């Protein structure tokens, strides 16, 4: 049974999936999402616990935190993106993994981020999970609308072109560096604001929230869901976040089954679940 608490985590998973999807749509395999997720969460945790313990916080403050997190992650992404995006394929992937680990250790060791215990007692904008469902669902809806428009836009088509053949795109006059950087920064911003929501939802935040494991799970969202359309990571994120929880009755076999899904998914659905062909069929379907 999916209760509202799980639903919130599913929606957050979908948002993180979208964050991983953005660079991929421009042909870049970047696993940096957890680093920016961690930065966003840490920022929210620090800001909202500044004035000592409170149990509630207004929604406007949370929106303010999201704005600040967006700015911070965008800045970091610009700084890191320029050197990193020159790399290709596996090298880029590993560089972003390294980034995630560096950020994690930094948050662990910096004096003001709470160290190993992290920061707890983060105030809540909502008393019930349902509030979070509405809020994060709203964020997801806005993102969905933006992504749907992105695919038709000039930026979206540039990204698709770069994905197909970067060299050719450059020859055609597309500013590949600028496009790739835009995708990277947007991905970072999305991860950052998801971190803000997550920090409030989880009540506590520590360095382990943005670890290598998260990089892999969020990547699996995209790979399984499909990397050709924004709905792929959304559905992948929703399903794969729910899966370990739905598998609870199976007990100890839970993680084995989860691993099997990640192992066999790409073998049997190499383009993921939501393929362009599927979308085409859906589009032509006349009820």
């Amino acid at each position, binding site marked *: 049974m999916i209760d509202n608490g799980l639903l919130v985590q599913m929606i957050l998973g979908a948002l993180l999936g979208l964050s991983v999807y953005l660079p991929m749509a421009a042909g870049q*395999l970047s696993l940096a999402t957890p680093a920016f997720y961690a930065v966003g969460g840490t920022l929210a945790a620090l800001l909202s616990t500044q004035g000592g313990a409170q149990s509630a916080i207004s929604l406007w403050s949370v929106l303010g935190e999201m704005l600040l997190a967006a700015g911070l992650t965008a800045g970091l992404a610009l700084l890191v993106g320029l*050197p*990193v995006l*020159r*790399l290709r*394929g*596996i*090298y880029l*992937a*590993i*560089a972003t*993994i*390294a*980034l995630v*680990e*560096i950020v994690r*250790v*930094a948050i*662990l*060791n910096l004096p003001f981020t709470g160290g190993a215990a992290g920061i707890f007692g983060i105030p809540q904008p909502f008393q019930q999970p349902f509030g979070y469902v509405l809020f994060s669902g709203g964020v997801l809806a806005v993102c969905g609308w933006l992504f749907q428009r992105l695919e038709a836009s000039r930026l979206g088509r540039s990204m698709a072109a770069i994905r197909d053949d970067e*060299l050719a795109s450059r020859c055609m006059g597309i500013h590949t560096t600028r496009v790739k950087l835009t995708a990277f920064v947007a991905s970072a911003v999305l991860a950052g604001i998801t971190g803000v929501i997550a920090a409030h939802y989880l009540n506590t935040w520590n360095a382990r929230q943005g670890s*290598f494991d998260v990089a*892999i799970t969020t*990547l*699996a969202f995209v*790979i399984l869901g499909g990397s050709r359309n924004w709905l792929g990571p959304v559905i992948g994120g929703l399903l794969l976040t729910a899966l370990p929880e739905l598998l609870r009755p199976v007990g*100890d*076999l839970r*993680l*084995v089954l*989860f*691993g*099997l*899904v*990640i*192992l*066999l*998914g*790409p*073998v049997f659905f*190499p383009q993921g679940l939501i393929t362009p062909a599927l979308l085409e069929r859906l589009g032509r379907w006349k009820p």
Partner: protein
Amino acid sequence: MIDTLLQTLLNGAASGGVYALVALGYTLIFSVLGVINFAQGALFSLGGYLTYLLLGGKIGVNGALPGWGLPIGLPLWLALLLAALGSGAVGLLVERVAFAPLRRRGAEPLLSLITSLGAGVVLVNLLQLLMGAEGYAFPQAAAGLAKLPESLLLGGARIRTIQVLLLAISALAVASLSLWLERSRSGKAMRAVAEDPTTATLLGINSVAVVRLAFLLSGMLAGLGGGLIGMSVSLAGPYFGISYGLKGLAVLVLGGLGSVPGAIVGGLVMGLAEALIPSEASGWRDALAFAILFAVLVLRPSGLLGRRQLEKV
């Protein structure tokens, strides 16, 4: 102080040897396939547990078959060898399930990153189901190590005897591997495939067999490494291999992806760099490995000894 310097060097060499072993496993596969096998860490753990069982150890109360064990314990060298072979065999299985189907279909090579990770997750959790998560110490008597002194004093610096053993065995394995790659027919075939798969096939080399051989060898290296680590620090849950796996990635890049001597040099350099960190900053140690990794990728992606990858236009 000379003492401190020597101690640091010794510490660095000890951990560097293990890193080199892990990186070599990655290197073999990367050189022939161009992908990273994320199940490597899990094979590490598998090797540790297999060695334990082969030495006559019994499964603990939290495992699937509490109290089960082999009727006799094998001598250490045999246990290590068989455990390595076992891991190698599972490595072949991983190739069959997680890599081959994608290659056959011509799917994006990065997908095998995911599938190999899934294989690793499955393997580690199966190990957990079978053996439980408790600690396992290798049976003392079979190891025959009780007669040796616990640590050696080398010119004012101390090192645990078992670390020296670890270093010696890793060095032996690495040297044999390098020799084999250099001299033997199949070794040369592997280097040919690594250089240029198409030409190699045209020359009549069975690249499928070479790929399988790479997985077998890399699995064996991982298994051997896991057994050695288990000897040194005992086994503490199947997850220990994963952290070595991650560090091994950094070494791999530092030394140069696809370069065997690079993996060795990279391992030693990484070990030394970590040993040089003062204790106040030891929390940043993990970040050092990855900062090095990051810097190498940005400044010199081919690593210390890798070949420069030319962009084919």
